[in-house]
């Protein structure tokens, strides 16, 4: 098993099935990329780089999701 820590919770993936990019992870979690700010190990990842940003096991990922209203 390989793990990613997402918003403080460890999420396990069978070996070899870790999502490869931020975009893939968001798709797996069914999150609209237009409404989330992503941070990996304290570093903000720009939305336009979601598809090219590689993930590796053990990373600490914060996904800050926005819902409309203000």
């Amino acid at each position: 098993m390989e793990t990613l820590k997402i918003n403080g919770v460890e999420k396990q993936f069978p070996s070899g099935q870790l999502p490869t990019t931020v975009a893939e992870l968001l798709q797996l979690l069914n999150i609209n990329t237009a409404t989330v700010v992503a941070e990996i190990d304290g570093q903000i990842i720009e939305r336009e780089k979601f598809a090219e940003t590689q993930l590796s096991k053990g990373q600490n990922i914060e996904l800050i999701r926005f819902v409309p209203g203000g």
Partner: protein
Amino acid sequence: MFFFFDLRKMISINNKLRQAVVGIAGLGGLGSAVAVALARSNIGKLIIADFDTVDAGNLNRQQYFVDQVGKVKVDAMIENLKRINPDVKVKAHQQKLNPDNIGEIFAGANVIAECFDKAEEKQMLVETVLTRMDKPIIVSVSGLAGYGNSNEITTRRISNRLILVGDGKNGIDSGQPLTAARVGIAASHQANAIVEVIVDGIKG
């Protein structure tokens, strides 16, 4: 003696607020209430930005008056802030914000309040401030629609530059209305977090 101590503390808080510059992105239910709370707190300078005009439908939750319907929001807000506290400097921008103008519009701000309506615009502003600006802390809001459940609205420190207010789930996309009291709770969380970071810095 206690009175003397409290007075000194009050003066120290006021001095920090007087030196602070706060940017407010969007002057709807959140932004108009944050601006009013900070003006009453005797903040030094506000940089307010909104492209829109006051609509009759805004009056159920936004800090404008019936006779201001049709006015440009930044102009209406300048009038109201002057009547509340003429000592607050206000710089107004009647324009839509985008990744290329945010840094210039909010240059010099210590803190920026994200007070937009659309989720995509909230995302854009938070990402832009955190990746393209070095200094300001951003206080953003996600989840304030509906009524009741006051205590589900929280203030959370996400990182040393991002504070997030809201219940994290109740958006207007879920069909819930925006109501003055619940929007006001979120706006007060936001203004209160801004005062706290100005006075004490961001707590880790």
